[in-house]
């Protein structure tokens, strides 16, 4: 008889949450925590109402508005009528169904993927979903977390379960030591540039190796956050002391003895030595430099010291799309990436809008000034981040350097509100997507780490931050 192989971390959590297997079909997966926001939930609540049922387990769903809110004057009524209606609808639905809501101006409000971890809602071993693809962020804690569509949001509201086929398993190991000036964002941009925006499709990725272990929780969140940009269902990192230290004392984390008991149960959450992955990839930290994207999908990234690939250097079947992408960016193949003039700098989003990111930028910026022609926005990921930034004097440093500190929300990451990069303007952005028009119709986006964005703000051009450290 063939010996049974060990289980991966992902298997352990997934299998423990399967309520029922449908023959030849998906699994019925139980969801521990469900996060919702104003854009992808109204149709789901409408569905519940139409069926005449109530939310099955309202205590497991948490709501906050983030995508479609202004980042100035949040104490006033939202000006845009449609946005206001959508945010009001969320409030109404939450009240009606007994769902906890951290509304505008609530001290816990913020981008869903920033508040979950900072409030201690996100914990190892959980299944978590949200009608948002960057739910993968929460995998940094050793939870199985992934984005879902609105029909699935309705499933969770109705039954606390979703129907889901089990994805394949991939492990990406990054070993070595990150050189100075190279951050978690560079690691994930590097990985996606290697495996492309479809390389992870069909998989759940476990990140491992000494580089991943050495990252802070914020850094791990940045890596897991962008898993989806490789097409993967999600990312996951085995919890360790870094994880437990982060969770300890957080608002909704278990306390005292209960916390110790929880840690004990979290410690077993790792892949068995003999676990088998469907695919394994290895990368060496020594090859990673500050990365930046030059095209219109997150896989089109390169070392900041490099050049925009010549057409012949790209995949044969893909060249028409490649040319279209460069035409949109108004970039020429073969030219150096660094040195081009930047109009906007955006530091924020669920990828890099946490307190550690703001600290990094402030440390870099201190005593420097942004270039005159650059508009620089800092958008904290949450109310708590904003508060902390003010408390630590970070807000001051940034404002002195000419940055605009705005109020928490998704902001220019998807430009649903007024925070839009104007047509034709070039932005260096710490967010996660550089699709055509993502930051406003006709806007052009280069994705990079917070310090690379800060360097661009200071010099007014795409600049290797290592030259300024």
């Amino acid at each position, binding site marked *: 008889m063939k010996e049974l192989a060990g289980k991966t971390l992902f298997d352990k959590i997934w299998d423990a949450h399967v309520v029922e297997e449908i023959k030849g079909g998906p699994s019925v997966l139980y969801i521990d925590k469900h996060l919702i926001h104003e854009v992808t939930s109204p149709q789901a609540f409408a569905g519940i109402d139409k069926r005449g049922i109530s939310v099955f387990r309202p205590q497991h769903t948490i709501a906050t508005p983030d*995508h479609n809110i202004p980042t100035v004057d949040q104490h006033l009524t939202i000006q845009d009528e449609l946005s206001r209606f959508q945010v009001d609808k969320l409030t109404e639905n939450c009240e009606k169904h007994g769902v906890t809501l951290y509304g505008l101006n609530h001290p816990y409000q913020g981008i869903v993927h920033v508040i979950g971890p900072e409030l201690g809602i996100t914990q190892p071993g959980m299944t978590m979903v949200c009608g948002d693809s960057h739910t993968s962020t929460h995998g940094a804690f050793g939870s199985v977390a992934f984005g879902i*569509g609105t*029909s699935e949001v309705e499933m969770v509201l109705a039954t606390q379960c979703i*129907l889901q*086929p089990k994805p394949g398993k991939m492990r990406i190991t990054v070993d070595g030591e990150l050189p100075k000036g190279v951050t978690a964002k560079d690691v994930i941009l590097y990985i996606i540039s290697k495996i492309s925006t*479809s390389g992870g499709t069909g998989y759940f990725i476990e990140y491992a190796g000494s580089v991943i272990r050495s990252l802070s929780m914020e850094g791990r969140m940045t890596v897991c956050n962008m898993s989806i940009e490789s097409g993967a269902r999600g990312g996951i990192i085995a919890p360790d002391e870094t994880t437990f230290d982060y969770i300890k004392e957080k608002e909704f984390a278990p306390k005292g003895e209960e916390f110790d008991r929880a840690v004990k149960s979290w410690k077993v959450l790792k892949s068995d030595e003999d676990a088998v992955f469907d695919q394994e990839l290895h990368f060496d930290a020594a090859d990673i430099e500050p990365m930046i994207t030059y095209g219109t999908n997150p896989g089109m990234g390169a070392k900041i010291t490099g050049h925009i690939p010549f057409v012949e250097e790209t995949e044969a*079947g893909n060249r028409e*799309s490649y040319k*279209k992408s460069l035409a949109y960016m108004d970039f020429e193949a073969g030219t150096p990436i660094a040195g081009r003039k930047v109009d906007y700098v955006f530091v924020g989003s669920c990828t890099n809008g946490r307190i550690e990111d703001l600290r990094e930028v402030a440390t870099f910026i201190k005593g420097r000034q942004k270039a005159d022609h650059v508009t620089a926005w800092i958008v904290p990921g949450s109310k708590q981040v904003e508060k902390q930034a003010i408390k630590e004097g970070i807000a001051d440093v940034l404002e002195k350097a000419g940055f605009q500190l705005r109020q928490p929300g998704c902001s220019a990451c998807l430009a649903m509100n007024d925070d839009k990069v104007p047509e034709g303007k070039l932005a260096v952005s710490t967010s996660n*997507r550089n699709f055509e028009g993502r930051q406003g119709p006709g806007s052009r986006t280069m994705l990079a780490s917070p310090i690379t964005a800060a360097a661009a703000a200071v010099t007014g051009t795409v600049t290797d931050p290592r030259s300024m450290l």
Partner: protein
Amino acid sequence: MSTKKFHTIESTAVPLPIENVDTDQIIPARFLKATTRDGFGENLFRDWRFDKNDQPKTDFALNSSVYSGTILIGGKNFGSGSSREHAAWAIHDYGFKVVVSSFFADIFKNNALNNGLLPVQVSEDFLSRIFQAIEKDASSMLKVDLKNQQITLSASGEPSLRARRSQSERFDINPYKKECLLNGYDDIDFLLSIKETIAQFEQART
């Protein structure tokens, strides 16, 4: 709540030979402010379809008088990026019943299936044959037979010729999802029907 049953579709198709079509292109974020599922078709591919002054761009396939039909053909890695189900709603609302590509992003595929929009994944080779056939003759027909999981491309011309020149490929679909589509079953009805089991599962865990 049952949804509409999916029947065999026979139609001409609209070609979109672009790779990595992301859901931000299918429906840009600024059109996601609605709180119902209707009307998204109007803004399908908004920034590819219309210029700054809201005038249709004549070189875009959806605006062409040559192409029509209820089948959309996209390049590899269709539907990547944001999980917004609005993308599937927009395509369906516009009037498409099937999207064909050689590769689909995961969440888009789920969203499409949950909305009676059938994603048909074909080989690279078959996809390029479809594109070529349509380019040569926009009246080329495609037949999507869900029950037999078969997609057939037939050249134009009189019926007997068409039959001889047609080429088919089998496509995969999860058997459960296939049943749902063919019969108009709804996932939530199913989940609601096992609520007892779910409650027992919760009990057993505590």
